[in-house]
């Protein structure tokens, strides 16, 4: 029954989305003004029905209803509760249902609260949101029905894959999805604004909280994904320029650019067409990324798990949504003037540099991700990795970070370097000092060297906007900006330090023997076999001491799983404030010695702490913006009330 209820709710939601689109279009074109009133309630209902369908799926997974195909394929009665829950979105159909649910709820929320924009723009926005949703509903109902029955029911579920039972994997995808789909609202706002040609500060202010919210989730999702790859893969790296990673980075880059151009549009009514285009591009990148990952077009290793029909369906959706939006942009943006002009040296000028550089990096990542496809079309198998991405990205990242030191200090419209110049003396001195200290070190690469110098300068420069300010009267959004920019410096220092100072050692030792890596003394005590529910492992027992201090036991494992047969390494990490010791147990050599791979990675954890700071900055800004919006609405209502009572 629950499955049928869920399916019915999904069909109803799809029908309401169609109604929402139709009513919006008729009202906008003047053929049914009376219909304008139903668009908002319909949008709210549509979101609630999608949520009901998603709840139905969760209930099916919690109860392990094996007469539902999706449950039988992906769950198992013996799974721990939390993974039964996560199983509902940890597969293709369920994750697409989560996608439309988040999209529906976002649309419902916009319909419910957003009152700043002119009504026609709101109608166009909600119609746009409905249009995009219909495509995804069709995809779900036609080729990925999550509620499909299995007759006869399976005696037991199929999904006890231990590798997927990881708390990080359970919550990482929904975090990214909230980010991806949050950008759909920005997309719809951009469509609405293009249709009614109402691109101005009100549009930017309405869009900004959505971009901020999505961006916070994307930032956290990327940071968590990077840490997961770092400790789980056992290769000691934290970013691999893998297509799946790039798929999450590209929307983040676009959203970061959009966030900053939104600021210019909201404050100064400039960069209109550009902001609208970024609104389209940010969600487009979400869809492109999802397509690249889902269609399996880039990961030929898993080619057998790919369904070409689904790939074609998503591609068709992409072509209609993105192609349509970009066509609309090309036709309409010519009538949207760029808005107020500004001098090169000004806050706007700095933000333009930020936008251009972010867009260039986005282009580089997109090109690098797609290049294997281009090459394959010409008959060559290639893979593109760090030797391409790192230097190419740095070409644009370095000028962007230099401007980031100055930008927040500049005034809007017009400013001069001589005014801000003396405030930058301190960061400059610190950067030069860092460069001097590093010059004494031998064997540091060019990029890590630049990275550390820039991080030192930026750490101070990012705090300067707080100077001469009364802390209690400083708006939350300024605190947010400072926290996020400081977070960039922190993360950058972590990355550069990891790459410059990491010490790696590959040794073969007998039980009882010791080795040194960086400031650590690591002794192999012995190697023991251990067994888990569905794996066996060799566990190395090691004792590590930092500069001859207390000894700590760490236990890296080499695991063998049975279903599917797979070897994984469980690295052992020992975290200190100034870095991490990272140990991987390798195979046994013939003479009774064991291979150990050890890294000392100074300040590596700052990469993720920096990421969290950046997200926290976004959160502060979001709270600040929403609070001031609410205050303004309350004040306006008070004035209206007073006028009313005076009128009597």
């Amino acid at each position, binding site marked *: 029954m629950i499955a049928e209820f869920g399916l019915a709710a999904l069909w109803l939601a799809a029908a309401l989305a169609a109604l929402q689109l139709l009513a919006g279009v008729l009202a906008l074109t003047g053929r049914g003004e009376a219909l304008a009133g139903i668009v908002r309630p319909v949008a709210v209902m549509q979101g609630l029905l999608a949520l009901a369908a998603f709840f139905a799926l969760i209930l099916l997974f919690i109860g392990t209803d094996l007469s539902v*195909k999706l449950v*039988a*394929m992906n769950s198992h009665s013996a799974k721990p509760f939390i993974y039964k829950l996560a199983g509902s979105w940890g597969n293709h159909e369920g994750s697409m249902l989560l996608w439309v649910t988040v999209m529906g709820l976002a649309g419902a929320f916009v319909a419910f609260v957003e009152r700043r924009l002119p009504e026609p723009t709101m109608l166009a926005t909600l119609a746009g949101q409905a249009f995009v949703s219909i495509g995804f509903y069709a995809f779900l109902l036609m080729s990925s029905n999550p509620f499909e029955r*299995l007759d*006869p029911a*399976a*005696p*037991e579920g*199929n999904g006890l894959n231990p590798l997927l039972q990881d708390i990080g994997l359970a919550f990482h995808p929904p975090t990214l999805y909230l980010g991806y789909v949050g950008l759909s609202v920005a997309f719809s706002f951009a469509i609405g604004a293009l249709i009614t040609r109402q691109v101005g500060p009100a549009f930017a202010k309405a869009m900004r909280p959505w971009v901020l919210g999505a961006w916070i989730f994307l930032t956290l999702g990327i940071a968590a994904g990077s840490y997961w790859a770092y400790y789980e893969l056992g290769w000691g790296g934290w970013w691999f320029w893998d297509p799946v990673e790039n798929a999450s980075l590209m929307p983040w880059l676009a959203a970061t650019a959009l966030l900053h151009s939104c600021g210019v549009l909201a404050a100064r009514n400039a960069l209109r*067409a550009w902001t609208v*285009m970024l609104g*389209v*591009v940010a969600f*487009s990148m979400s869809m*492109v990324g999802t*397509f690249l990952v889902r*269609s*399996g*077009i880039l990961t*030929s290793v898993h*080619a*057998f*798990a*790919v369904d*070409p029909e689904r*790939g*074609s369906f998503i*591609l068709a959706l*992409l*072509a209609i949504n*993105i*192609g349509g939006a*970009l*066509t609309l*942009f*090309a036709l309409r*943006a*010519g009538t949207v*003037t*760029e*808005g*107020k*002009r*500004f*001098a090169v040296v000004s806050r706007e000028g700095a933000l333009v540099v930020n936008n251009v550089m972010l867009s260039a990096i986005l282009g580089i990542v997109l090109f690098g991700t*797609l290049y294997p*496809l*281009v090459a*394959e*079309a010409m008959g060559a198998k290639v893979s593109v990795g760090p030797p391409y991405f790192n230097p190419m990205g740095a070409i644009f990242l370095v000028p962007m970070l230099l401007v980031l030191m100055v930008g927040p200090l500049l005034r809007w419209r017009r400013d001069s370097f001589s005014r801000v110049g003396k405030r930058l003396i301190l960061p400059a001195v610190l950067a030069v000092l860092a460069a001097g200290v590093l010059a004494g070190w031998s064997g540091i690469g060019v990029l890590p060297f630049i990275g550390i110098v820039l991080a030192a300068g930026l750490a101070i420069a990012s705090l300067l906007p707080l100077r001469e300010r009364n802390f209690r009267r400083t708006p939350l959004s300024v605190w947010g900006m400072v926290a996020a920019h400081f977070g960039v410096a922190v993360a950058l220092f972590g990355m550069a330090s990891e790459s410059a100072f990491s010490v790696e050692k590959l040794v073969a030792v007998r039980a009882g023997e010791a080795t040194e890596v960086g400031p650590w003394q690591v002794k192999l005590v012995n190697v023991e076999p251990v067994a888990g529910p569905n794996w066996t492992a060799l566990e190395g027992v090691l004792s590590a001491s930092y500069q001859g201090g207390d000894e700590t036991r760490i236990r890296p494992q080499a695991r063998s799983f*049975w*279903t*599917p*047969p797979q070897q994984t390494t469980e690295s052992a990490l020992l975290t200190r404030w100034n870095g991490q010791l990272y140990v991987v147990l390798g195979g046994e050599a013939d003479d009774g010695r064991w291979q150990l791979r050890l890294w000392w990675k100074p300040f590596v954890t700052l990469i993720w702490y920096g990421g969290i700071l950046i997200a926290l900055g976004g959160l502060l800004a979001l709270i600040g913006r929403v609070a001031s919006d609410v205050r303004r609405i309350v004040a306006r209502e008070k004035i209206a009330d007073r006028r009313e009572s005076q009128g009597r």
Partner: protein
Amino acid sequence: MSGERKPAGWALWLPLMIFGAFVVLVTLGLLRPAPRDVASTLIGKPMPSFALPPAMPGRPGLDSSVFTDGNPRLVNIFASWCIPCRVEAPQLAALANAGVPIEGISVRDSTRDLGIFLKQNGDPFERIGADDDGQVQLALGSSGVPETYIVDGKGIIRYQHIGEIRAEQVPVILSEFREAGE
């Protein structure tokens, strides 16, 4: 520096053109048939030697010595708990009807479940060996169930198919099988 400036007309079409190029590129990528046969390192190598006990009482188990009797065979790794295995059952039946001898290796299964599975989905197998700890599956370099191998009369692995056999792939398997018999 005052007055309002409009963006250049051609520049507005640029994003659409880039996107168009992307669509063409990935359409080409989707149309190209995905390489289904993973170049397994086992192809061209002899079957590993093993002796699996019978999975069903009263039926023979699977001993690797049968692969050197001069006749090519299909080896199907399956399990009653594997749903794609149900999907491919009709295709296996079709292959068996076409005269292909099929040997089964059932991975981590119970006699009871296996009995139900064979009753529901048909039984195309000459012999079924019980691989209770997955060791033979591991030795065959199989990454999951179902997987199907074609072994020629001298015990050399000639072809590996990963995942379920779909209806449209039966002719491919048949022609590979005939080739292995020549």
